[in-house]
């Protein structure tokens, strides 16, 4: 198994810590003029999303994590797993609920997501920044009121609930920013 020494630590490097894959966020070299050198490292646990700090003796090595990001197309959800496919090899992977986590409310079939694989298994899923989804439930629209502010909740085909302008109706397709959960616009083809 590959290892990384502290002098190779830089942000983005994927390492194993306490059995979990982590990504290095920040690496600070600390050394008194007379005394032992340490690396004080902030890491993000890629399983839990939690960030924590750990200090290593400089020169120490830790195991590399076999973590890669790949673009995969979302296919379907069978109730337990979410299926993704590599568009080049057609190879499929199943992601469980903890891997899809909050991304599941934005997953539309055929959309291309970034799937983070750890030891070849999905660890997390990042949906496209912008997705187009259909409104399946909302209060009746107020026609003509296209300019003024005011919003109402709307449930989308994936189950996500977003705040939308009052004039939108069931059946409308809207564009949403998945990072903020904000409504952006009506989709062009609706």
């Amino acid at each position, binding site marked *: 198994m590959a290892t990384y020494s502290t002098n190779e630590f830089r942000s983005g490097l994927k390492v194993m810590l*306490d059995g979990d894959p982590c990504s290095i966020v920040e690496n600070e070299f600390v050394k*008194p*003029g*007379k005394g032992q*050198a340490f690396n*004080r490292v902030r890491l993000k646990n890629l399983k839990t999303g939690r960030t*924590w700090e*750990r200090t*290593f003796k400089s020169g120490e090595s830790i195991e590399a994590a076999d973590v890669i990001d790949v673009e995969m197309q979302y296919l379907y959800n069978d109730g337990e797993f979410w299926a993704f496919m590599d568009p080049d090899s057609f190879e499929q992977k199943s992601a469980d609920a903890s891997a899809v986590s909050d991304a599941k409310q934005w997953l539309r079939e055929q959309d291309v997501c970034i799937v983070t694989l750890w030891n070849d298994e999905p660890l997390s899923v990042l949906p496209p920044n912008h997705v187009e989804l259909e409104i399946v439930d909302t209060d009746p629209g107020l026609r003509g009121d296209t300019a003024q502010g005011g919003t109402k909740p709307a449930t989308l085909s994936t189950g996500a609930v977003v705040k939308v302008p009052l004039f939108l109706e069931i059946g409308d397709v809207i564009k949403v920013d998945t990072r903020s959960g904000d409504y952006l616009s009506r989709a062009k083809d609706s």
Partner: protein
Amino acid sequence: MAGNSTRVKLISARQALYREIRSYFDQQAVLEVEVPLLARAGTTDPQIASFKVEGTSGRGYLQSSPEYFLKRLLCDIRHSCFSIGKAFRDEEQGAKHNPEFSMLEWYRIDFDLEALIEECIELICIGLGRRELVRIETYKSIFQHHLGIDPHQVQLADLQPLVGRHTSYGQACESVPEALQLLLSQLIEPEFSGLTVIRDFPADQAALAQIAPDASGQLVARRFEIYLGSTELANGYQELTDAEEQRRRFQEDINARRLAGREIPEMDQALLLAMSEPGLPDCCGVSIGLDRLLMTRMGLARIEDVLLFSWDKV
């Protein structure tokens, strides 16, 4: 076309800093000396890695400090002196470390440690262009204050839970100095503000300082460090003058390096010879990291901000 004014400002600030330092030592009749950066002997300090240089004229090490040469000079000229120059330390790179850096080091004949601490504070304030609040602590008082322990008496087993609770070190410490150092850097130093002097280090962290009993009879190293905020800025000693003791410490260092599988440099025999005859006069010496002083003078956070060409640009 206008030049890069940020860089011009940086160059001028360093020029002013060096001018003020030189002018201070001029008034004090302390001699400026220039010593070699490349020498056959390297430091034996178990925690410092030197750059090794191979040439057709011979091999040697880039000096990690001017200490050995300045001490050889002191044996001969018996006059207070200082040097402003480059120092090199392999494996040290970070927000406050660059493998090549600038160091001011000076020695005062017949000064005691208290007088040198006072002068060092004065010079730091000159370099900063402002006065700073000064707090003077002993290594013992600072550990008693923060953790209620006596660092000279504490056992490793008693330090492990403290390291676990107060630091992010994920494993057991191998030695008392290592545990104390972790607690100092992660629990105590972040609380520092203004200038903080720590003196009377544990005897096993003496480096090249004399070891003598403190007021309570505890053997301590006659060594101090000065922090500016939480950044270590200066390290000084009442210098060890006993050549035999010096040889013993070099040998101890070399044994520690062998155990750690580190490069074993040659002991500086010329220094040992000068220290035994004519001998090193009673003196105190200290060094200051000039890049770090300049960082604070200019309000910059990272060492590369004050270097024209930092390590990743050379």
